[in-house]
């Protein structure tokens, strides 16, 4: 089975394509079989040719922080709808978080997600298992069992592990199995019922504050435990300038520490809350200050922040329309992340296309120990095609996700995924799911 992507403007720093280069890309049996000068291969009967007309072709994007809500909360999202949202957003792979119902803390639950995904998902679905049983932070989950079932990382995402002794054990155990630990950093005694950033937003809205220190203290602790245990540590959804400084210092020491940032922490601040109590802006960690967002953008460019991950957190309208303090945390992100990064970082010259590929395709797979996807012969043909010129507005009726709780509704963006291929098969074409 062969197909040819003609006139693809290829970018992939891992393939020596730092700068865009026009190629024809030959695919065979789900792999890349050749990259040639445009027009050098003659048309062949039985081979499907797709002319990209100079659109960007990059290795398929991966989002390593996604809540698929399946099993248990399928009214918010499920494996099918979540994977469709991923493909619409240009992602070929996602990492599903374990805070489902039941929690993914044993091999059987991990197998359920992977089996269901294999049968029904249109994107590749990877699974992070719970770090502790029931995400309670008290005792180690059966990480070995979950690894055998196919889990690739462990996390108690949604809450921080409060007991430092338990966190130490979890890091030691995970590192014995060679699995990375993804850490949601939140000190409960400081954060408590915190709703919004402690500062302007908490004062203006009369809501309990979620202080930056509540995140930074646990980042600092986990880095110290990383040094003690040697376990690969990945800090999730980092949101403050000081948090980034801690990670930068850890990296300078040579520790195996990485981190991710979400589009909402890059491009929104607590000022978005104004006086409106719009629960689409209720996030955990909360939207921070303009100075924090600027530091996050600079750190992403510099590489102190390894990757962009969306923390795609779908919620039903009846949940998000509650009183602010009763509404759940989170925004959807899969379908807006690429457009936001293209519009707000690439078009402005703050991030090169090669850096976008590194931060949104290569880094997540490297952090999780997955096989790289590159524009080289022999690589699996998980590919994202980007139309950089299309202008579009994020609108409430335009989501493939089951949920519409998006903090970016109304934003005008330039650039989005037009085609997505997974294992050489076209699953998105002309921006439409096939």
């Amino acid at each position, binding site marked *: 089975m062969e197909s040819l992507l003609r006139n693809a403007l290829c970018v992939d720093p891992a393939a020596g394509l730092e700068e865009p280069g026009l190629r024809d890309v030959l695919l065979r049996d789900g792999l890349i079989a050749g990259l040639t000068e445009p027009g050098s291969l003659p048309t062949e009967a039985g081979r499907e040719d797709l002319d990209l007309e100079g659109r960007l072709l990059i290795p398929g994007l991966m989002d390593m922080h996604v809540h698929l809500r399946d099993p248990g909360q399928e009214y918010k999202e499920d494996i099918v709808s979540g994977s469709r949202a991923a493909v619409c957003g240009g992602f070929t792979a996602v990492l599903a978080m374990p805070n489902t119902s039941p929690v993914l803390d044993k091999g059987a639950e991990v197998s359920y997600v992977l089996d269901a995904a294999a049968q029904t998902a249109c994107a590749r679905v990877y699974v992070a298992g719970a770090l502790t049983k029931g995400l309670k932070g008290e005792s180690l989950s059966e990480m070995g069992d979950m690894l055998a079932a196919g889990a690739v990382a462990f996390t108690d995402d949604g809450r921080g592990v409060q007991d430092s002794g338990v966190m130490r054990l979890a890091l030691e155990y995970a590192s014995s199995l060679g699995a990375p630990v993804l850490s949601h950093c939140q000190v409960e*005694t400081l954060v*408590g*019922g915190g709703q919004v950033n*402690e*500062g*302007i937003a*908490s*004062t*203006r*809205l*009369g*809501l*309990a*504050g979620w202080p930056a220190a509540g995140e930074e203290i646990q980042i600092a602790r986990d880095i110290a435990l990383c040094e003690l245990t040697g376990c690969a540590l990945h800090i999730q959804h980092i949101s403050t300038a000081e948090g980034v400084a801690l990670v930068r210092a850890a990296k300078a020491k040579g520790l195996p520490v990485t981190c991710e940032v979400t589009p909402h922490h890059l491009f929104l601040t607590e000022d978005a809350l104004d*006086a*409106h*109590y719009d629960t689409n802006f209720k996030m955990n960690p909360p939207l921070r200050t303009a100075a924090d967002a600027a530091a996050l953008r600079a750190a992403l460019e510099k590489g102190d922040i390894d990757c962009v991950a969306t923390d795609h957190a779908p919620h039903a309208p*009846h949940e998000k*329309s*509650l*009183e*602010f*303090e*009763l509404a759940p945390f989170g925004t959807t992100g899969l379908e807006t992340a690429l457009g936001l990064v293209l519009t707000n970082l690439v078009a402005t010259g703050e991030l090169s296309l090669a850096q976008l590929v590194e931060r949104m395709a290569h880094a997540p797979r490297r952090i999780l120990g997955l096989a790289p996807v590159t524009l080289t012969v022999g690589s699996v043909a998980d590919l994202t095609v980007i139309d950089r010129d299309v202008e579009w507005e994020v609108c409430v009726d335009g989501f493939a996700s089951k949920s519409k709780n998006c903090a970016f509704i109304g934003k005008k963006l330039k650039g989005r995924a037009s085609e997505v291929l997974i294992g050489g098969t076209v699953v998105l074409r002309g921006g439409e799911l096939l």
Partner: protein
Amino acid sequence: MGALSTKHVIDIQDLSVEDINLILDTAVPFKEVNQRTIKKLPTLRGRTVVNLFLEPSTRTRTSFELAAKRLSADGINFSASTSATIKGESLVDTAQTLDAMDCDLVIIRHGYAGSPRILAQNMRAHIINGGDGKHQHPTQALLDLFTIRERFGRLAGLKVAVVGDIAHSRVFGSLGPALDMLGAQVTAIAPKTLLPACPELLGASVSTSLDEALETYDVVYMLRIQQERLERSPLPSLREYARLYGMNLERLARMKPEAILMHPGPVNRGVELTSDTIEMARNLLLYQVNAGVAVRMALMYLLLGGDQDGIAA
């Protein structure tokens, strides 16, 4: 008589300085009405006012209820125990249900900040915030402004100390910005554990000592220590609080002779104020309560565009 520039009074900053002055001016004749034997005007006859009190309240609910009755409005009371919210109905659904009954004005008291906005987004009626979580309590601020203005004849240039649980106080959430808007100088006095992250956003400068400049204030406003709303105790003891930040006869004697002492009530005796201080200040504390009815009548009247002739009757 003019009209207000806003449909709802949720945030004190929904009101302009002109709006606030209009409300205070309008409250003056209503206060006179409340001294009459027949304390009832026909101005809001046929209008429906709903008191949606989802959190316990005695004085605010009574004050609004009385204000509505004295303006001849038809009032309905919903409390947490009678409303459908305890059966799990969402506030959005409650709002839409009340809206279907064609209410003209809803006063909401709720434990969650921002909840009056949910009503405003789902109803045609005017909304008055009767206290939302730790956010705002604009009618308390208005009656306090009225009280201060009655005493001094002005608000601009006055030095006002507000003492106590600033961080958890919806009273201060409205009063601080209101005093600032009207040109008073506000000092929030509390230990840092009871101060919000950015007190300057509420129009206040900050001091951690009550004794430091006590003789310079025109108004000393003691906030209630909201013991039920303190997540982790920010105070070592109420005894120590009373010692450092409580009003007693000794401190009262140090205040300017013309200075006034205020409290939104209910008072924790022996905490914010000693009992003998309460006796000394009783007239003013009750004056605040009395003014509350008139100010709420004025606000309802202005929002609902009541019939003017009624007042003179």
